[in-house]
């Protein structure tokens, strides 16, 4: 059985996050020094070889992304940290920034060196105002000690928009605009912030970088599942005994997360379903719990790893009611730029409310299934594409719950 293993949370509880000397005493900023002694291509190759994939949900190979921005020719490049953390049930990035801000800063500085950027931004969600002070303190300490050299980092606050976690919407928001996603391509590594090559990585992704540089790609690639190696931080919510977080290797199974780490379901009740990856994730039934949490293993069962949120429901829960609440979330958070999402999320919420209030028919289930399939392939960004997942997967795995509510 996979044991807990702390890479991104390695300093959790061991250091005073506001004391840079504590971080240095744990070997902090050594990796940055080592990175700068390597030539840029070798460094990027090393990150590529570690097979680190983005922890923000899309799972793109991190080193490969960096190599696109490295190759792009421009007078200015940017490193942006996605600290928008909007997926309901997720608070892992907050944990990292609250407890070890320097690991994020060091990861960003290594990226800046690798791609040749002198300016960075941390886009921190507006719901975390207390983090702005922590991050700014850490940045000025690192500056003062000379670690950052010509690399400047600015913290920007979001203002309560889930879609701003989407990287191009986030870029629009830093530019002071409405956070509406851009058409892709061009992708940010070639044309991002103010049209310049930009790397957008998640907090957890950056936090892995110093350790990879320090211990080497081979060490990292050997942890967990080979196609998505390393660890992942999970946050457990809902009907679970240990409502807390765990960092585990990616070969851990969903069952282990819930029963071994989570301590099972409270009150001796039975398990009903688990939604992983946040509110846009699939609902997973009992028979699929032995799946490892790694990206491709989850995709193979029609689910996602996403942000690592683990939302457990016991047998007494009304899953149709929960999915109706989730449908409202998407209706509210759709930015309105593309019609399939703007209209689709509204209709989806409307039909779910009808079913939930006992007025639905089998025709409604057919309609909503078709609507969901259309949205998954026609919406502009991941928000609309993923919005139907909770509806479609609960219709697939928990059909009886829907039928019980029909007229």
């Amino acid at each position, binding site marked *: 059985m996979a044991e807990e293993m702390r890479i991104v949370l390695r300093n959790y509880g061991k250091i005073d996050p506001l004391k840079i000397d504590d971080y240095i005493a744990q070997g902090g900023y050594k990796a940055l020094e080592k990175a700068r002694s390597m030539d840029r291509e070798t460094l990027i190759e090393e990150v590529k070889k570690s097979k680190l994939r983005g922890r923000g949900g899309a799972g793109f190979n991190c080193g490969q992304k960096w190599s696109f921005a490295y190759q792009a020719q421009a007078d200015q490049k940017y490193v942006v940290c996605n600290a928008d953390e909007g997926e*309901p049930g997720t608070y892992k990035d907050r944990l990292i920034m609250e407890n070890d801000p320097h690991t994020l800063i060091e990861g960003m500085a290594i990226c800046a060196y690798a791609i040749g950027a002198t300016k960075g931004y941390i886009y921190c969600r*507006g719901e975390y105002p207390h983090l702005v002070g922590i991050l700014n303190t850490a940045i000025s300490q690192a500056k003062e000690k000379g670690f950052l050299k010509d690399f400047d980092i600015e913290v920007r606050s979001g203002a309560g928009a889930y879609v701003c976690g989407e990287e191009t919407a986030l870029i629009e928001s830093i530019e002071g605009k*409405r956070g509406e996603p851009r058409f892709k391509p061009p992708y940010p590594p070639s044309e991002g912030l103010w049209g310049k090559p930009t790397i957008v990585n998640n907090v957890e992704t950056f936090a892995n970088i110093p350790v990879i540089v320090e211990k080497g790609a081979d060490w990292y690639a050997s942890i967990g599942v080979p196609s998505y190696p390393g660890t992942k931080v999970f946050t457990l919510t809902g009907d679970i005994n240990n*409502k807390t977080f765990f960092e585990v290797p990616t070969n851990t199974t969903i069952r282990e997360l819930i029963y071994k780490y989570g301590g099972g379901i409270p009150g001796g009740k039975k398990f009903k379903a688990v939604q992983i990856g946040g509110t846009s994730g699939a609902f997973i039934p009992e028979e699929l719990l032995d799946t490892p949490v790694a990206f491709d293993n989850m995709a193979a069962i029609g689910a996602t790893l996403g942000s690592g949120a683990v939302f457990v429901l016991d047998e007494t829960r009304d899953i149709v009611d929960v999915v109706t609440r989730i449908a409202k979330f998407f209706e509210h958070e759709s930015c309105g730029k593309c019609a399939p999402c703007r209209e689709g999320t509204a209709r989806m919420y409307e039909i779910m409310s009808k079913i939930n209030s006992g007025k639905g028919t089998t025709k409604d289930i057919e309609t909503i299934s078709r609507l969901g399939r259309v949205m998954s392939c026609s919406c502009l960004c991941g928000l609309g594409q993923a919005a139907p997942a909770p509806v479609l997967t609960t219709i697939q795995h928990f059909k009886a719950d829907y039928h019980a509510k029909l007229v």
Partner: protein
Amino acid sequence: MKGYKEIIASYANVPGGIIEAYHAIQKEFSYLPEEAILEAAKVFNLPVSEAYGVATFYSMFSVKPRGKNVIRICESAPCHVAGAAEVVAALERELGICMGESTQDGLFALEFTECVGQCQATPVITINGKPYLNVSPAKIPEILAEYK
């Protein structure tokens, strides 16, 4: 109290700084007065429609006056199943207003929010951005007393 002109001016040289300026204005006024949006459009060299578009896009910004202390209740799924609805009912009862309204004395505004990232202790509310964890109806009077 700082004037909105002064606040906006201090962000004039920040590229894309209008959102930061709006945050700072709301800290003083609790909402974005129309004059402030017009001023921001001028300073950031944007059409008024765009400055207004930014103000209305983000759920934390309000273009209508509202109570000084903004109470937000998380209604995302983990808080929903943990009993957010009972907390809503208790707050509405205690303050004598409905969700989306402000109290007569201008002290409190009541709003929904989605997940605020404190899901280890659901249900959660925030007041002026400060989170309160494991909130139950019984705890409401005590929490509100801090702001009276």
